[in-house]
């Protein structure tokens, strides 16, 4: 047991210097400072601006920025949808795979363009190599860069700067952060055993004489951006549990760190933009504590294993259902919390088979959306919570609440509220409809309280743009494809629009100088209060479904019936 917790601890400790460094680097990139990649990337960016008709000095307003996000994402979605349906006549389809049904294609396109990568299909048996690399792999860069750009624009607005230009931020995200890291990371993964080939699947005769079909493909480059960009859509159906996506504990460590580094680093990027490192460390510390506690809850549950099975085995053994030997309970629990926290959605073990504490923590993570949170947007959500805390606590010190010297007024509260409301609407309402017709709509594979978790998880994953699934759910139906689309779109674009408008209105406020009467937001006290408010808001909204899902399931084990 202690070895397990030791490796978890060590992994997340590596994180601290890593994200500190990356956060500083990203700040330099988006502040336009010199970086070591300038000699290579500046000409490339110039070309992109020239070909794309991007005037990089034009700052956008919040609404212009949002419109650019929506338009570009729409175009990308259409392009990818076309590749899906034309799969058969496009090259690199060694197994002659047919195009998916229209609703599955629509769900997949929306799911990937929203950086969710919720998959209602199995990679090997659905998409050709060309579709995987030129459609899905392409969206992995752009959707992630979109999130990052929005996050940066939000940080700019919050710190009183102009929002910048979406296309410039999109370009910089790709050329300065995602692409260089992906090239390096992808090569390391190939070295560690992840295939990168255009050859068709290999059929072999096993030692015992059976025919084994070994799926492969251009996986390595896809795998790394999948992790780094919080995309999470696996090349293979079983995602990072597949030995070709994640062959050993070294690749597992790299992929775990890749998954968490950008969202965590953005807190430091903010700190540099705001010129307040102290607050950066405090916020980092707060989220880190959430992260650690949730990992501990999930890990202990997996370590203790299934009491019913332990009865049969005659001793306490970890729950290894849906887990790989090379990762064990510790790395799987760590991954599960990281992937649901960062809205990556890749899995290296099956979440449906997690013990109730694991189910609870993963769901809770996606409800909060800020234990690191999605690419760019996660940090923005963290600040939305901060703004709400500022509003309530600011009143309590007898001043009109202000954040970073900018007053939080009706407009800001309305916009923050929209973000707060999206989740209950996009999760609870479709869950309730689906659960009202369990026979016809839901396709629940694990009955009982776990069935509630399955359905709620699916919509939460969609609305939080996470993409992981309680995969047992029979979710390939038209109902699931289309209803999840609504949650996907609502969970992505409503908050993005609100965030950008919020950033815009904060940017244009006259900053109020700080006095002793100003509520400082970079204190342990305020950070603690914020943590309490995040917990209360998250818990209050979803307490009933958590109580009827994982909590009831846990009590079921405790009482044995």
């Amino acid at each position, binding site marked *: 047991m202690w070895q397990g917790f030791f490796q978890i601890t060590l992994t997340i400790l590596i994180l601290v210097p890593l994200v500190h460094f990356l956060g500083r680097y990203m700040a330099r990139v988006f502040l336009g400072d010199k970086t070591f990649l300038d000699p290579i990337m500046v000409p490339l960016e110039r070309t992109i601006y020239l070909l794309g008709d991007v005037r990089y000095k034009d700052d956008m307003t919040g609404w212009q920025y949002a419109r650019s996000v929506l338009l570009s994402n729409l175009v990308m979605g259409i392009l990818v949808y076309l590749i899906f349906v034309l799969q058969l006549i496009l090259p690199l389809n060694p197994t002659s795979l047919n195009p998916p049904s229209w609703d599955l294609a629509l769900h997949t396109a929306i799911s990937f363009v929203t950086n969710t990568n919720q998959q209602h299909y199995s990679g090997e048996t659905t998409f050709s190599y060309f579709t995987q690399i030129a459609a899905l792999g392409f969206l992995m860069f752009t959707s992630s860069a979109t999130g990052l750009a929005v996050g940066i624009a939000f940080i700019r607005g919050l710190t009183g700067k102009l929002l910048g230009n979406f296309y410039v931020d999109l370009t910089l995200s790709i050329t300065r952060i995602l692409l260089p890291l992906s090239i390096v990371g992808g090569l390391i993964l190939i070295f560690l055993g992840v295939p990168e080939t255009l050859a068709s699947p290999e059929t072999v005769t096993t030692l015992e004489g059976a025919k084994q079909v070994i799926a492969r493909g251009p996986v390595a480059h896809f795998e790394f951006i999948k992790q780094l960009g919080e995309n999470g859509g696996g090349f293979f159906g079983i995602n990072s549990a597949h030995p070709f996506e994640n062959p050993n504990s070294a690749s597992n460590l790299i992929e775990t760190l890749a998954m968490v580094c950008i969202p965590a680093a953005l807190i430091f990027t903010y700190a540099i933009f705001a010129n307040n490192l102290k607050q950066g460390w405090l916020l980092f510390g707060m989220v880190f504590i959430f992260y650690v506690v949730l990992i501990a809850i999930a890990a202990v549950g997996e370590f203790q294993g299934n009491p019913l099975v332990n009865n049969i085995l005659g001793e306490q053994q970890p729950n290894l259902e849906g887990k790989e030997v090379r990762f064990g309970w510790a790395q799987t629990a760590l991954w599960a919390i990281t992937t649901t926290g960062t809205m990556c959605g890749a899995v290296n073990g099956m979440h449906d088979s997690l013990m109730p504490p694991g189910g609870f923590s993963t769901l809770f993570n996606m409800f909060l959306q800020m234990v690191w949170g999605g690419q760019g947007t996660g940090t923005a959500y963290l600040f939305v919570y901060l703004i709400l805390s500022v509003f309530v606590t600011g009143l309590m010190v007898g001043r009109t609440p202000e954040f970073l010297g900018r007053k939080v007024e*009706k407009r800001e509260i*309305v916009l923050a*509220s929209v973000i707060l*409301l999206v989740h209950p609407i996009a999760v609870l309402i479709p869950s309730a409809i689906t659960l*009202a*017709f369990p026979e016809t709509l839901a396709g629940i594979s694990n009955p009982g309280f776990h069935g509630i978790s399955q359905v709620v998880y699916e919509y939460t994953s969609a609305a939080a743009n996470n993409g992981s699934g309680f995969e047992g759910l029979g979710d390939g139906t038209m109902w699931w494809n289309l209803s999840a689309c609504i949650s996907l779109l609502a969970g992505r674009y409503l908050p993005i629009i609100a965030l950008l408008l919020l950033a815009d209105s904060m940017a244009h406020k006259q900053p109020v100088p700080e006095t002793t009467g100003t509520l400082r937001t970079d204190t342990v006290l305020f950070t603690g209060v914020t943590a309490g408010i995040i917990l209360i808001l998250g818990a209050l909204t979803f307490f009933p479904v958590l109580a009827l899902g994982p909590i009831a399931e846990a009590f079921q084990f405790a009482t044995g019936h």
Partner: protein
Amino acid sequence: MKRIDLFDEFLPRDFKEGVELLKAQWRRRPLPIQLFLLMCLNLIIAPAVYAAAGTEIDRRSAWALGMLGLLTLGLSIYVFVVIFQPEHF
């Protein structure tokens, strides 16, 4: 104008008068008419509730549940109005 003539042709005179009465009433006293229309809407929803719930409830309860659902929806819209136009409250 043609459309209205068509109405005249195919629908009984009473219907047209009924619609006009409703319109006039709406202008004068909106609330009762809104309630009336809500109940009309419920004539569509109640059977759906009845069908969905299966054998567990009778027709009357289905109708009441339909009303309750509409009322909840109405309250939700009302709260949205408050969120976006708080000055009026």
